[in-house]
């Protein structure tokens, strides 16, 4: 076991694993059927949303129930300019404008909300963030000229019947000459942006900010005594979560090309929180697993024609994770390692495993000595 851990701790091996994963992800869509590509793209969309939530919940320890609001706003920010300008002179730029707006607008809203919310602690913050999806749906319906209201907004334009249509077609169709199918093109676009976001998040939580977030999570008074302003770092983590949510909204439009007021509804926000906990709070890999949980469980129950039991299946998994893996699915290897070590410890006195435990603490910046209460 320790040999494996030591092997995995090697920087080159880890870089190699990352490279192999990248290559597999890069080549896979060329082989896989369209539905697999679409599924992976959707997992990436929600993995980014869950990652944002993880920054604020897992790493900084603040409960946010409003993440879906930022996803929904990001989706509108992407869809509205693309729909308005697709086919005009600025058509390729409309996608870039959509992406920029999907980052800036949710970020600014997140910052403003956080400036107020981060003055509070614990459940009070959760209460403030609940307000976002609750006002989001009626707000989107009220401005239905812009958002399409309940009927929603599709960025695909059909070649008839829509008099205001500037351009016709699917803005996220594969460009002519690329030799790719639409599902492959969308896959690459979503994965490229998602991987950039994940790499940024990886360096963020491992660096100075990540350590500051962890201290704020463990004890705000200690943080303040060390010269780390809990308020400032809570605002920062909220804003980053909002930006990631907005990017997930843009990716949502790339993958599905449609959004509506229903996207913002409160229930989906809770589903994201659950996905974060099931995947693993305070874990980058956990965010991916959370996205996979969000997308795959309904898909599997559909495939088995047992979709009436989707909620039951999700509930069972949530309970199992909470009881057996409080650190989420991402903590499974860690739990197995600990169990193996405990068993070995029973047989020999040599229970201490310096290499192994050292790698555990470097692998996860946060202390693993005690189970984190997420």
């Amino acid at each position, binding site marked *: 076991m320790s040999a494996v851990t030591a092997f995995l701790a090697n920087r080159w091996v880890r870089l190699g694993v990352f490279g192999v994963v990248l290559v597999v992800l890069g080549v896979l869509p060329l082989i*896989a059927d369209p539905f697999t590509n679409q599924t992976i793209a959707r997992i990436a969309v929600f993995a980014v949303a869950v990652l944002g939530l993880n920054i604020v919940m897992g790493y900084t320890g603040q409960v946010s129930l409003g993440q879906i609001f930022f996803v929904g706003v990001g989706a509108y920010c992407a869809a509205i300019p693309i729909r308005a300008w697709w086919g005009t002179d600025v058509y390729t730029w409309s996608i870039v404008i959509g992406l920029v707006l999907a980052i800036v607008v949710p970020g600014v809203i997140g910052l403003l909300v956080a400036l107020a919310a981060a003055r509070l602690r614990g459940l009070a913050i959760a209460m403030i963030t609940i307000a976002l999806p609750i006002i989001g749906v009626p707000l989107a319906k009220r401005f239905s000229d812009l958002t399409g209201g309940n009927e929603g907004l599709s960025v695909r334009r059909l070649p008839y019947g829509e008099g205001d249509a500037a351009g016709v077609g699917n803005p996220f169709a594969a460009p002519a000459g690329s030799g790719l199918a639409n599902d492959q093109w969308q896959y690459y676009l979503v994965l490229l942006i998602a991987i950039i976001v994940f790499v940024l998040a990886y360096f963020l939580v491992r660096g100075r900010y990540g350590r500051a977030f962890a201290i704020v999570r463990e004890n705000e008074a200690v943080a303040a005594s060390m010269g780390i302003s809990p308020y400032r770092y809570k605002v920062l983590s909220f804003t980053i979560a909002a930006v990631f949510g907005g990017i997930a909204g843009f990716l949502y439009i790339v993958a599905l090309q449609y959004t509506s007021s229903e*996207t913002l509804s409160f229930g989906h926000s809770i589903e994201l929180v659950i996905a974060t906990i099931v995947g693993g709070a305070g874990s980058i890999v956990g965010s991916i697993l959370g996205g996979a949980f969000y997308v795959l469980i*309904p898909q599997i129950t559909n495939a088995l*024609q047992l979709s009436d039991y989707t909620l039951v299946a999700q509930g069972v998994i949530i309970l199992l994770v909470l009881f057996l893996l409080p650190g989420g699915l991402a903590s499974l290897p860690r739990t197995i390692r600990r169990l193996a070590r405990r068993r070995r410890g029973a047989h020999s006195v040599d229970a201490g495993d310096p290499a192994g435990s050292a790698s555990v603490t470097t692998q996860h910046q946060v202390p693993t000595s005690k189970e984190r209460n997420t």
Partner: protein
Amino acid sequence: MKTTLSGRRALAVAASVGAIALVLAGCARGETPPADGGETSGAVEPSPGITDTTLTLGISTPLTGGTAGPGNCTVDGAAAYFGTKNAEGGITFGDGKTREIEILKYDDEYNPEKSAANFQQMVADGVFAAGLGLGTPTNRSWREAAIDEGVPQVLVMTGDPIFSEREPGVMTLGLVPVYMQEGAAFGEALVADGQPHQVAVLYQNDDYGQGYVQGFKDSIADASQITIVKELSYEPSAQSLEGQMTELAATGADVLFHAVSVTPLAIADLQKAAALGWTPIWFLPSNTASPGGILTPAGVTADTYPGVYAAGFAEAAAAPPFAESPEGQAYFEAIAEYGSAGQDGKSFPHCVWSWIGAQILEQAFMKMTEPTRESFYEALTSITDFDAQFSFGPIDTTIDGSPAVQTVVLQKFNGAGYANVDVVG
């Protein structure tokens, strides 16, 4: 020495990564060859989801969550109808072959993102056609995708008129009358009364409520004796409409046009008006007019108000005459046999609507001469004068802009159920 070593390691990593890339790239996705080969000339290439013995139908609808009750009904009605037909040996299609109908159901939780994903799954599962699903955003989210893929999206249960627009290359069709038709049915009956009326309007501020109000206003546009004295709206997330009801009661209007889709709000409003001593004539939309689900819980009897009217297009399974008719008995037996567990077939009208939709699909199956989606859609949109069980009027699918079911009948509450009427008053 160190740099050389790490340089060599980097090279090794890059080499192994490159090798894996080459291996994976070797097995690129095989493109399906175009179906214009010489051997199939003469015979038509069948669409996906249809064989000589089966046809697969996909339904994406809310099976869990807040809308699960009506959502499960949209599957169960069709499952019951086709289950019975399959047990009898199947349906004889227009091309002479007898096929059984398989239904694949997909849960969308009334979440447009899930229904769009469900459509991708339906394409992967190779369904022939999709439809009968409930909800405006959940059907809208994959409309363009379905048109692009050439998958018929038919008999959807939404009052959104866009699905009934006929355009070349577009294979969509709505099942239920659009909201405007219901509002218009009440307006016309009110005009036919000939008496002056003062109308108070309360509507949900979305396409649903606005559609009802639009239909109503259009129908009374030329009638000067009818005036709208006050219009108030609410957001669908509202918890109480007491404020609106009090304000409308103060106008003393003798008619209340009540375009409210939320069950608890409708019950509370019916109680509130009585408590305020305001007794207008009521108009209720078809989905909040159920005697058992709305009026009885609200304590409304035949004498509470001068009249409670609703627009309907299908017989109510909860009404006693329905269960006594042979068709009704066959319907309940089929629901019990083929419906989902716990389905009684009468708590929500959508079960009967789905049963009607299945009959319309059967008509199209019997008329389609080729095993293709195009032939199916052509057959589906050329049905005229078809008397479907439990439908109030003949089905005509040939009219541009109209869904399959068009006959909307105004009904008056008589204390137990509804009776059809032509004139208000």
